[in-house]
């Protein structure tokens, strides 16, 4: 929720049953990662305030702590916490509502903050010095090579750059199969072509890409006979490791050892050989639980450790006359750009082109949406462009949208229609609650109908209301 990259992980995590959550929260590293990445900003504040509180937090006090105008953010934060089973609302004997942190979560978070216990969940560094120790630069290069190969495998063939020379490095059968299972590519008679989901994938930031791929991986763990909890807590542990440090594999479970092999194919961890006793997390791994840009693919030559945040990695300049200049020499970037730009000139460190109606509509036909294009351009905007707010010229943004809407006049949102309310008050109360949760899509006050794209929180709310009303 805090960044686009971890949003998918959050969506995945929310759908897990309570038992899985309880099991996950046994590991302090997992709890810390969930806390850092998955929670809305205010939810973190609430959790921290309750963490060392000796008594449960009564709902009245919580209400008083928030300003009236902060009600909607409070509801959102509380609903996220309840969906993740981090806090529970309870009623005591005197029928006063109060909130309690789930015990496992609170204990693990306290352990993570104070560093106590013997859970060894933050990775056990290897005690024996590695004879073939590798440095950070090597790890970065390794991670980038593996990851770009995957991207290139997806994009290359569609753009027509997939000559045999550029695809010389193979990406491994397992990875190919995973991409297919995730519906990122389609293989038709031996030819790989990218799908709409694939475009979404490619246009994301690296961090989000890693998560998307890992979530596909997670969904298929039961088929491979691996435990979901084990896989998830290993991933969260990876996120809390230190770059350039070798960790021992001796404390890992069977499932996790099996995972190591797959992860090294993605470039998330590095192992010097198949059965080495140590592994190195790469930058892809250690940034799993932060929103810092993982790998800058914009400039393959520059050292990526120099660029601290994604805001400094931008390389694209878009002018109000739709001309586009991209300071890059990476084939991957150029091929991604050529998906929706009419590129005209290429220099050693620069390509230039134009966003035309033709190029945008072609991209839309391929399944790329205008918002994907815009978010790609925004997230890779050159520092010079970032001086303005918004980064891209408004005319260009609007025009790209207009071009898309020319072809698509109807928008669909899957969801639920709520109707047949008994009274106006009931209707209004529920509608306002839906609005504060941000799930309200459409409403018609006279008919007392409204439409939401998420219903589980609402039904909980209604149930609570019924029980309260029945007193």
């Amino acid at each position, binding site marked *: 929720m805090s960044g686009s990259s971890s949003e998918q992980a959050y969506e995945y995590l929310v759908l897990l049953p309570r038992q899985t959550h309880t099991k996950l929260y046994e590991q302090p590293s997992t709890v810390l990662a969930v806390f850092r990445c998955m929670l809305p*900003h205010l939810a973190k504040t609430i959790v921290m305030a309750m963490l060392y509180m000796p008594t449960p937090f009564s709902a009245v006090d919580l209400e008083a702590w928030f300003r009236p105008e902060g009600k909607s953010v409070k509801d959102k934060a509380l609903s996220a916490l309840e969906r993740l089973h981090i806090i529970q609302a309870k009623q005591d004997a005197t029928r006063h509502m109060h909130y309690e942190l789930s015990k496992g979560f609170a204990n693990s978070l306290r352990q993570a903050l104070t560093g106590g216990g013997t859970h060894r969940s933050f990775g056990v560094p290897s005690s024996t010095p590695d004879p073939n120790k590798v440095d950070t630069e090597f790890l970065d290069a390794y991670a980038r090579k593996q990851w770009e190969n995957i991207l290139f495998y997806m994009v290359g063939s569609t753009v027509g750059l997939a000559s045999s020379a550029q695809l010389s490095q193979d990406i491994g059968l397992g990875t190919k199969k995973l991409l297919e299972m995730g519906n990122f590519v389609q293989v038709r008679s031996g030819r790989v072509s990218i799908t709409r989901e694939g475009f979404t994938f490619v246009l994301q930031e690296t961090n989000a890409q890693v998560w998307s791929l890992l979530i596909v991986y997670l969904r298929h763990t039961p088929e491979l006979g691996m435990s979901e909890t084990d896989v998830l807590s290993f991933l969260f542990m990876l996120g809390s490791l230190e770059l350039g440090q070798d960790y021992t594999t001796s404390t890992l479970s069977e499932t996790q050892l099996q995972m190591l092999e797959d992860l090294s194919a993605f470039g998330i961890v590095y192992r010097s050989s198949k059965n080495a006793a140590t592994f190195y997390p790469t930058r892809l791994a250690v940034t799993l639980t932060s929103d810092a840009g993982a790998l800058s693919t914009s400039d393959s030559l520059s050292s990526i450790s120099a660029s601290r945040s994604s805001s400094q990695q931008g390389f694209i300049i878009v002018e109000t006359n739709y001309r586009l200049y991209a300071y890059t020499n990476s084939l991957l970037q150029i091929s991604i750009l050529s998906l929706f730009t009419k590129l005209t000139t290429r220099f050693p460190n620069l390509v230039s082109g134009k966003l035309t109606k033709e190029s945008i509509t072609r991209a839309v036909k391929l399944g790329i949406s205008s918002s994907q294009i815009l978010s790609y351009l925004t997230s890779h905007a050159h520092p010079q462009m970032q001086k303005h707010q918004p980064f891209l010229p408004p005319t260009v943004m609007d025009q790209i949208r207009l071009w898309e809407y020319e072809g698509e006049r109807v928008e669909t949102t899957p969801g639920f229609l709520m109707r047949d309310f008994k009274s106006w008050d009931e209707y209004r109360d529920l509608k306002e609650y839906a609005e504060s949760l941000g799930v309200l899509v459409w409403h018609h006050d006279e008919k007392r109908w409204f439409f939401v794209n998420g219903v589980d929180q609402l039904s909980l709310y209604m149930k609570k209301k019924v029980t309260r009303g029945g007193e």
Partner: protein
Amino acid sequence: MNAIDGTDRHIVTEGAPPPSLLAIVLDTNPHAWAELHSTLPLSSALSALLVFINAHLASGNANEIVVIASHTNCAEWLYPSPRGPYPSSPTTEPNGNSSEARHNKDHVPGDPNKFRPFSLLEHSILTSLSRLVSSTTSADLASTPTTSIGGALSLALTYMSKAALLREPVANDAANANPLSALADSESATTTRTTLTSRILILSVSGDLANQYIPVMNCIFAAQRRRIPIDIVKLAGDTVLLQQASDATGGVYVKPERPEGLLQYLMMAFLPDATSRRSLVMPTAGGVDFRAACFCHRNVVDIGYVCSVCLSIFCSPTLQDNLCLTCGSYLSLRSATSKTPQVIPRKKKKKKRLGTDSATPGPSAVGTPMHG
């Protein structure tokens, strides 16, 4: 179709709240901690503080921390450690790939039960603090019973302004090409785009700080100008000055009734950053004492004499050679004493409040010559 709308342009860029930089000024005055020993010894206060720091770092991936000790006779960096060069890249990145982390890597044993950045930070703070304590001689202690809060505050403010400069989107280019132009430009740049929200937390145990009235006041006005709130945890003693600091900068002021529960006070009242504070009700100092300290003896005065040229405040009308101590202009206060001063305290309060609330640099401009 209302899909094309100028307003939804901004949705794309609206992401996580800006990272927040927290500077903690820890008052390490041995006299005051010795008095507090029965309720809250320094060691338990420190462990509460470390948990609080970890909580702050966990609350945002790019959050940063600075810890400064305000000792009896000096202000000292506890974190980032002063041994290394000035950390151009903030050292609390979760990746732990900064120079500081590398610097410390050899000394800190890898602990599988602890998040790596946390253990690095804890190690750095504890070693710096123990070095500071062991280097304190009894002569230092005898010389002054109070703490150098002014120096610590200015250290924190300079670090923050440097961090803000480094965060600017074009900071790298501009700073390399011409650092001075970047500095000159900083005022306008910070107002256009907030990339970093900063705040200062003072953990204060010392009492009377009136002897540092001018430097602290200057820091307060600097913080006010840069919109940096100063939060105060007042564990012991009472000073007029720190109350004014939190009031003038919009910070939180808490005087815990039970100091042994320090951690809960910290977690509840001081952890929310500027983004969260907008939707929370924060505690503030109730009645603020706006009295000023005189420039001649550093006493807090109810009624004083004010230089008509530079607005310096004096507690007694007997000035040497009838010259103002600050600006040196002729100032005969004797004539004022012949008549009883017709000052209504209420009115004076209001006047003072005006001066601190609006950002007019009146008193700070007065103070500057003294400071140098």
